[in-house]
């Protein structure tokens, strides 16, 4: 009998709020390729069908506005009611027993916990981030409520999955989840999405002149991503290299970045693009001479995998989870989170082709060997099988019939 899993996620393409949608989508498809029966229960989206077969993955979209709700947290609560009501009716007979319930983040906590007890099936939870980490601490009762729901969800989970050891420690610290209950499985990447750029010469010419080296930043323009450190480093880099700084992404620092490059007199050497479509973005990595990742906080650091897949040499602060992917002078140039150090690192790569080729080759190999979705799916299945073996061996906690 094949392994069955029911994914619970509040986002799944085309409903995309953050990084969860892509993660759940790619993981589900890869698990399906490995022969698992995969069901995804998620929320509705205008124009998306209530039920859909996505490359063998059965997707159910639940009406998330079935109940009126006075505010966001109440909406989340009532959306969970809709999820559990829908799943209890539609999954009972259509999913092979036993099955794994795999929940992603606190937004589906109530539904996941109720379904676990109603069906008496094992619950696995991926904590992609924590309220504590997202907010740099817990400062008010609203955040305390979310942290408390996260802790409850982690307590109910048979196993908790995090994407890095860094996140495992954060979950341990913030939610008091014992480390022996946490499995670290990194995020995956589809290398092939980044290895065949569409018309790279033409693309490059849209962002930089032929004589300019292309320095790329991709990420939300927010404090924890450290984009302000890169901006402050631009004048120093330009003293020793002719370069164009391409800054991709949106965020509350966008206007600050635009103003600051004028103040620094480097506006003509900086291109703040905003959001780019996925095809352009994927190709852009492969024409970059250096990719800069100046993050101050990073649960995992998926853009490191994307840049490495495309063969861009990486300069990074190696904050949080990145330190587990990249290492100094092997797969990246590691810098301190300061403009001086970032300028030094970027110039190292720009002035030393041998070094650039060496680190990008190593980084590419590392991603291929450790972070392909195929590898990640295998490691996820190993956790499922481990949990199911324990579940089968448990004499008491079984459904009545």
């Amino acid at each position, binding site marked *: 009998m094949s392994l069955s899993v029911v994914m619970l996620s509040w986002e799944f393409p085309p409903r995309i709020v953050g990084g969860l949608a892509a993660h759940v989508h790619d993981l589900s498809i890869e698990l399906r390729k490995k022969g698992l029966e995969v069901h995804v229960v998620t929320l509705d989206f205008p124009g998306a069908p209530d039920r859909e077969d996505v490359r063998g993955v059965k997707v159910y979209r639940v009406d998330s506005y*079935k109940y009126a*709700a006075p505010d966001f947290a109440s909406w989340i*609560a009532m959306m969970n009611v809709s999820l559990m009501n829908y799943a*209890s*009716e539609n999954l009972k007979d259509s999913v092979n027993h036993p099955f794994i319930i795999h929940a992603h983040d606190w937004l589906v906590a*109530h539904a996941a916990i109720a379904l676990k007890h109603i*069906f*008496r099936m094992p619950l696995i939870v991926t904590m992609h981030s924590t309220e504590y980490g997202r907010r740099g601490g817990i400062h008010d009762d609203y955040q305390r409520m979310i942290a*408390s*729901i996260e802790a409850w969800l982690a307590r109910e989970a048979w196993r908790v999955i995090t994407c890095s050891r860094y996140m495992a420690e954060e979950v341990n610290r913030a939610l008091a989840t014992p480390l022996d209950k946490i499995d670290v499985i990194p995020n995956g990447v589809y290398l092939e999405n980044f290895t065949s750029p569409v018309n790279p010469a033409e693309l490059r010419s849209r962002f930089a002149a032929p004589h300019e080296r292309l320095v790329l930043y991709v990420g939300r323009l927010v404090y924890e991503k450290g984009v302000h450190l890169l901006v402050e480093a631009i004048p120093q880099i330009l003293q020793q290299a002719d370069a164009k700084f391409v800054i991709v992404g949106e965020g509350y620092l966008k206007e600050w970045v635009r103003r600051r490059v004028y103040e620094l007199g480097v506006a003509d050497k900086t291109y703040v693009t905003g959001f780019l479509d996925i095809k352009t973005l994927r190709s852009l990595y492969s024409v970059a001479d250096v990719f800069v990742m100046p993050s101050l906080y990073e649960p995992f650091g998926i853009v490191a995998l994307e840049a490495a897949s495309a063969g861009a040499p990486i300069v990074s602060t190696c904050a949080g989870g990145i330190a587990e992917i990249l290492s100094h002078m092997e797969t990246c140039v590691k810098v301190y989170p300061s403009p001086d150090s970032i300028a030094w690192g970027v110039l190292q790569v720009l002035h030393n082709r041998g070094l650039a080729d060496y680190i990008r080759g190593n980084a590419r190999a590392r991603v291929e060997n450790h972070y392909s979705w195929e590898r990640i799916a295998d490691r996820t299945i190993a956790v499922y099988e481990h949990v199911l073996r324990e579940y089968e061996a448990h004499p008491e906690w079984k459904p009545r019939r």
Partner: protein
Amino acid sequence: MRVVFLTWEYPPRVVGELSWLIQSQVERLRRRGLRIELVTISDTGYYVEEPAHGLRVTRVSSPSSPHSSLITWIVSINTEVARVVADLYHSGTEELVLHSHDWHFAPASTTLKRSLKIPWLASIYSLEQHRSLNPNSPLSSCIRTIEWHMVRDCDAVHVNSDWMRSEVRNILSFDGDVRVLDASSDIWEEEMLKLYRVLVRS
């Protein structure tokens, strides 16, 4: 057969009249030999007691706190209620009937009915429209939609008077069956037991 009473108030947790009303119902049915599992809320932690023969009271608390609204609180407790009733269901072979009182545990009841096929009787003593000072506020609207789905999701709706029946029909635009059983009548216990038996058989 065991009947699972779901109520957000039961002595000593007294919010309004409902608490005493349910206590007297429990007492009358228990004397007729009915076995009752009563699940209610405790504000001060989780505990189980058997105060009389045939009655077990399980008090559950929200596993998460604080809460930003009445809704986040009641949904957390609904999740706990689902767990407690599911544990009852899975640990025995007896038939269960859910008997919810007002709207508070309608979400858990819908889930339990749909997944475990436990028949569900919903008693309504008052509606949000009657209780709320501002029935069109976002909070009251949320509760009204919970009531709206409750009368449609359950197997039988019960009220105490013809007046309440017409209120349920008008306010919740409900044209399904509403049973009127007046708790002050002498045959109330008999009729209630009959109703439970019909629900179990259906």
